[in-house]
């Protein structure tokens, strides 16, 4: 798939932006703080409705403005689609609204129309970072490729908040009420774990293969490490294991006033020749593993929807040495459209359309 048109209005430091990107590689070069990352963030947010940088959507609205709008027209196997995501900053919080072909839709119906794989410098810490960052990595890929996943995740999170509120004593203690939320946690949690098993399984193959070409002497293993251990990846086995763990933890959950078991505490383990990368890997080994994982993510996203997603690389090529950067792009292989930012023209990139980003303006397209 590719974007044929992209528009920002009062998004971050952009007042108005209208671009007609080309297929293939679109390269944006400029000094820091001119708006390169904002440009990529906007494309990612147009696709996923979420920012990869900030948890607060209100930050996405240009200072002094109330509404930011991201819009775009994409061509995919399903045909042409016009998408818009509006972010409204009001006195009672920030609200996002979505339209597909000018009709308002709910978020669940918006997700997945433009699929993106983003790679930002912070991702390079994925192997050594928090389990939360690795869960977010799984969530964004699943939400874009499985329509039901986002629904289950949202349902799970809501029930978790409610259960924690009961445990905290926000309302009178009530075992029946706990059971109501636990029923939702079990049903949604089982779906989440099933989806994660499948995804990590697909990722593990792709990542191991890419890694074998980056670093032939070491074998990368990517493993799903669910908080609830189960024997078989079937709905029945997972639900039974989850329920048993929940019953077992009930006492300590009451003491600690917090829900202790479930996929909200899942992790993904990365290891080289059986040795944990997070604990013992060098920074170089960790980075190589992340590159392999990103290659795998791109491959899985392409395979799942039978179509190449947009590839967004924010300043990440300049973080890598030339060999690694070249090897990474080589492994990604054929993409339909990529958006890449850099502070200087990276060597060895051919066939790119280059634009300069300066003070929230995108200037002069040129081929390099």
């Amino acid at each position: 798939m590719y974007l044929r048109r992209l528009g920002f209005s009062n998004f971050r430091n952009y007042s108005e932006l209208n671009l007609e990107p080309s297929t293939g590689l679109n390269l944006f070069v400029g000094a820091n703080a001119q708006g390169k990352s904002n440009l990529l963030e906007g494309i990612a947010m147009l696709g996923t409705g979420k920012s990869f940088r900030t948890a607060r959507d209100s930050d996405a609205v240009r200072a002094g403005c109330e509404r930011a709008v991201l819009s775009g027209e994409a061509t995919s196997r399903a045909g042409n689609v016009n998408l818009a995501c509006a972010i409204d900053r009001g006195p009672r919080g920030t609200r996002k609204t979505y339209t597909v072909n000018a009709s308002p839709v709910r978020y669940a119906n918006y997700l997945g129309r433009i699929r993106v794989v983003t790679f930002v410098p912070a991702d390079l810490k994925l192997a050594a970072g928090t389990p939360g960052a690795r869960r977010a990595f799984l969530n964004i890929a699943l939400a874009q490729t499985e329509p039901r996943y986002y629904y289950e995740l949202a349902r799970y999170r809501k029930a978790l908040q409610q259960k924690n509120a009961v445990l905290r004593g926000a309302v009178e203690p009530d075992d029946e009420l706990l059971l109501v939320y636990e029923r939702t946690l079990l049903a949604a949690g089982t779906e989440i774990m099933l989806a994660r098993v499948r995804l990590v399984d697909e990722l593990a193959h792709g990542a191991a293969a890419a890694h074998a070409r980056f670093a032939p002497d070491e074998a990368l293993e990517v493993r799903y490490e669910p908080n609830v251990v189960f024997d078989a990846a079937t709905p029945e086995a997972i639900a039974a294991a989850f329920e048993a763990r929940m019953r077992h933890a009930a006492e300590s959950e009451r003491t600690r006033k917090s829900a202790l078991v479930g996929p909200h505490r899942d992790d993904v383990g990365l290891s080289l020749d059986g040795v944990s990368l997070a604990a013992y890997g060098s920074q170089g080994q960790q980075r190589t593993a992340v590159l392999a994982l990103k290659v795998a993510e791109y491959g899985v996203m392409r395979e799942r929807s039978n179509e190449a997603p947009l590839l967004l690389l924010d300043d990440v090529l300049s973080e890598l040495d030339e060999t690694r950067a070249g090897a990474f792009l080589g492994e990604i292989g054929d993409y339909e459209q990529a958006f890449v930012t850099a502070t200087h023209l990276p060597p060895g990139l051919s066939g790119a359309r280059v634009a300069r980003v300066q003070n929230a303006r995108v200037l002069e397209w040129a081929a390099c």
Partner: protein
Amino acid sequence: MTTVASPVAALINELSKLPTIGPKTAARLVFYLLNRPRNEAQSLAEAILAVKDNVRFCSICYSLAESDPCEFCTDERRDATTICVVAEAKDVYAIERAGAFKGRYHVLGGLISPMDGIGPAQLHLRELIERIGREAPREIILATNPNAEGEATALYLSRLLQPLGVVVTRLAYGLPIGGDLDYADEMTIAKALEGRRTLSY
């Protein structure tokens, strides 16, 4: 710095406390009212006070009423063996508009949401149970919204009511009438499939 006349500021402030009205909309409403004749403003003010002074909650079903018990609870033509449980008084009006229900109502006064400090004790649940004991209805229809809080409340209620020997039903999930399958989201379609029925005539 210029300041607006203080009665204007005061009204803007009052209006912006209302749901869905921000300061900008409040200001628009105030300047609109300023341009209208005095009697219009007066009838608005009187209507607001009349709501507070003359409308109360029915002590049986907790819906809005001018008299207590309300017209639903006293109307002998309505079926007393079926009670429809809703979250808010406004939901009674939504169901009444459809004209398809001829039983009695019970308004919970909200939905269970512990994170917002609303537990079963904050709602008219105990009153519903007492009422079931008193009136011995045949069926309780749970008509809370099909969102997270509505589902949790319905589930909690169904567990609570089961031992009372009353039939507990839930409104069906499905596709909107006149809607287009193409435009329905995946979850609505999945739920509609789950709740499918044999077609007979």
